[in-house]
Structures are given as C-alpha cells and as structure tokens.
C-alpha cells in the first residue's frame, strides 16, 4: 500500500479552490477508487458523478493532471504519484458542485440533429439489404459512450463557449453515424454548415486524442462531414455536376 496526494477542486457553481487530500492506495486502483476513498474517509460531502466503473457509462469524466479522462479508466500506476495528482471538473460545462458539471447542453444539441430517415425497404418483407463494409464505416461511431470528454477538450466550447453555434465533436460523430448510414436519406448538410457550426472546427484533433473509445473523431467523422459540406456549398464543379444529375435518395 502506498500514499498519494490528490488536489481536488472543491466548490460550487464556478466558485472554489483546490484542496489537498493524502490517501493510501492499493495496486491496481484507478483514480475513481481513490476519490471514493477520500469521499468515504475525509470528505463525505464531496460531489462526484459515477456509475458503471467500467468505462462504459461515461459518467466519471474529469480532468486529471489537466487531461480530460474517465476517472474509472485511469490507473494510478500510469500517473506520477510522487507528485500531487490534480483532479478537476470538465471546463467546458457549467459547474455544479465539486467534480460535477451540468452537461445538459449536450442533450439539447443532440435534439437539433435530424433523425434517421431510412429509404423504402429493398425487399417485399419490409427489410433492407446492406453490405457489411458500408455498415462497418458507421459502426465505429456507435461506440460513443457520451462521456463528453471530446466536448470538454474542444477549444471552441472550452475557451469560446460557443455552445449555441457549435454542437461539438460528439454531435458530429452522431451526425456522421446518421449521415453516412447506408439506408439514410435525410439531408443534414445545411444544418451542419449553418446552425451546427462544423466550420468552427479547426482540426486540432484534441477530441480524437481524448476519446476513451478510440473513435477517430476528426478523420472519420468531422473531416468527411466538412467535405460533404464543401460538395454542397463551396465546390462550383460539384454544384455544376448536380445540375445535370438527379439527386439520389438511396446512396
């Protein structure tokens, strides 16, 4: 058993300061374990959101030594325990208490995305035929656990608070999952350009780096969406081709 010092942000509604807690830890423990130990032994009033402790619910998102991470998936032996470990709430969202933030803006943003609209069934029994490789492309996006670490690290939200003009990486992943779906016929490109602000993304790839599900957010979701927006609004040659080509609804 060893000791570690945690610097945890304590306070409510944006006001607060770091408080230090010394705590013992056992081999194999994760940050959430020691936070729970501090909560149990030293600070019973400390607010921390968690649920599955398995990296699948996305509840225990926080910033550990300045990097957005899931507390339940960050083992202490990956951190330098000879120095205090800083744990603070996500910076992009309104602060509630201690390590808990209000992430409800994400649910509003998600509602702004047009729903899945499948083409007419391919077969008489009301089913569709799809190629596995076409499904595989969007399958990656379905791994998202909505931890909102990508939203937290994105400087457009974190530094500029453009929540009303920019839906953020998580919702581009969601849009990509729908927009690239082999059955989908809905057109979300005007929304992406005008109200969801895909043009604000300047491709720093921070969202990809912090994703605990290793979704290649920038390369596989955001940039393909940006390219589709270029097709629709910026490329005169593509526009010219569209004049002579009837719009398809099935691919």
């Amino acid at each position, binding site marked *: 058993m060893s000791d570690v010092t945690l610097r945890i942000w304590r306070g409510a*509604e*944006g006001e607060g300061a770091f408080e230090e807690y010394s705590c013992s830890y056992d081999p194999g423990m994760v940050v959430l374990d020691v936070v729970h130990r501090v909560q149990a032994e030293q600070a019973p009033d400390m607010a921390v959101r968690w649920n599955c402790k398995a990296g699948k619910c996305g509840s225990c998102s926080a*910033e550990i*030594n*300045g*990097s*957005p991470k899931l507390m339940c998936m960050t083992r202490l032996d990956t951190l*330098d325990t000879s*120095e205090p470990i*800083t744990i*603070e*709430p996500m*910076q992009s*969202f*309104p*602060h*509630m208490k201690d390590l808990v933030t*209000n992430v409800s*803006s994400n649910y509003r943003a998600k509602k702004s995305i047009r729903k899945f609209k499948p083409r007419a069934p391919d077969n008489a029994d009301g089913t569709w035929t799809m*190629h596995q*490789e*076409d499904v595989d*492309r969007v399958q990656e996006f379905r791994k998202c656990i909505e931890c909102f670490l990508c939203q937290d*690290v994105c*400087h*457009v939200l*974190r*530094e*500029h*608070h*453009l*929540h*009303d003009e920019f839906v953020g990486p998580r919702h581009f992943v969601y849009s990509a999952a729908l*927009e*690239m*779906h*082999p*059955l989908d016929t809905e057109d979300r490109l005007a929304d992406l350009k005008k109200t969801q*602000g895909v*043009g*604000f*993304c*300047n*491709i*720093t*790839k*921070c969202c990809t780096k*912090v994703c605990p599900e290793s979704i290649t957010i*920038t*390369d596989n979701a955001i*940039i*393909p969406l940006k*390219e*589709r927006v*270029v*097709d629709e609004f*910026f*490329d005169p040659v593509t526009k010219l081709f569209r004049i002579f080509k009837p719009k398809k609804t*099935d*691919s």
Partner: protein
Amino acid sequence: MAQLETRIALPQRRFGETRRTDRWWLQPVAVAAGLGAFIIYSTWAAFQGAHYTYAGYLSPFYSPEVFGDSAHAWFGPWPLWWPSWIPYSPAFLILWAPGGFRLTCYYYRGAYYKAFWASPLNCTVGKPLKGYRGERSFPLILQNVHRYFLYLSLIFLVFLSIDVYHGLWFTNSDGAKEFGIGVGTLVLLMNVILLGSYTLGCHSLRHLIGGRKNCVSKTAGGGLPYKCVTCLNKRHMRFAWFSLFWVGFTDFYVRMCSMGVFTDWRLI
C-alpha cells in the same frame, strides 16, 4: 438558460496556462521548427534560380521547368517580356501549387494552427485570443479550396515520375545517352514514392473517391480505391513529414551535385 450557464462557468485559463504535466509544448515547437525550416529553405532555394539540375536530375522545386535555361525547360528561356524588376525563377511557377496543397491540408491545418497561431497551443492549454471565427469566414473559409490543390498535386506526381525516368539516362563520354541508376535516381524515386503516399492519402481524395457515398461498396472498383486511400490516410501525418523532409533533401542533393560538393555515385 445560456446566460445562467455562462455565469457559473469555471475560471478561464490564461494564455499558456494548463495543468498538464507532460511536455505539451514539444509538439507545437517541433512543428514550428520543422515547418519554419522548410519554408526558409524552400524560399531560399526558389530564389536561387540556379543549380537545380544535374545530369538527368531536376530538382522537384523546379519541376516541371516551364521556362528556363536547362535542357528540361518546356518552352526554352524565360520570356523577354517578363519585367526586369520582378525577380524570376522557374520555381516561382511551381511551388505555389504543392505549397497550397500543404497549406490547406487537413493535417497541416491542425498542426500549424497550434504551432503558429496558438489556436490552441495544445489541447487544454489556455489561448491568447478570446474571439474566434474558425473556418466559417474569410480568410480561413478559403481552406475549402483544398481539393483543387489536390487535383494539381496529382498532376505534379506525373511530372515527378517522368523526372525519375529522365534520371535513368546519363550522357557517356561519347555524348550518347545510356541507361543507368545513380544515387540521385534513387533520391528522385523515393521523393515520388513519399509524395505519392502523402498525396494519395489526402482526406479530400478519400472523400472524392468513395467517401462521399453512403454505400462505399457501390463506388468504382467495389470500394477498393476507397480502402487503399483510407489505408494511406491513416498514416497521413507520417507521410506529410517524411515527404516534406525528402522533397527538401532532393532539392539539396541535386543542388550539391550541381555545385560540385557531392559526387553522384553511379550504381549501374
């Protein structure tokens, strides 16, 4: 609701402030140094207007040589009507295209926004400027022209491949052309391979060759071209840097051979 949420935001980081404990500054410094060194060297090399050919080799900074004094020139010497007060070099007609391709490249954009504009310096590091318009308005909206630079770069790959072919022919002591392979030939070949790997892994190409369709399997070649571009695209950053270094080295090699500093060893 938005006003309420803004009011209870956590304290904002100052410029350069972060609680990261790793060497987060290393990446932007390395990118600034790498890109800065290349920009300085390529600009200097372009303004030289000399020592860009040796034997059958032609520097990629000067390829294709539209006007010029070497045997590679398509239309002979620089036109007489060119105003004497404007400096000229065959490279001026060339470098804007591959330069534009790299300037608007999705990988480089993210890299130099961090390194040169601190937007942001690195992930979760405080930014200097609070106003932000991104790529939605002028001038950065012009980054959407990337696919047109891609088209030009694909054409340049053909020219550079032809240069490799020219690099296979050497003039012997009788003045006749003979087949051969020199170190310079391999340098030119490696340049085409690396530039090809970088260009063919472009995000725009990945979109145009199949990614724009929801059913990639129904695109040309049954989606195989899309898979190949995707494969290269996964290594886009690596090829971006390798090809940048090697294209500079190729010019340097030809220049040094032309100046008599290097000896171009014949392998065959």
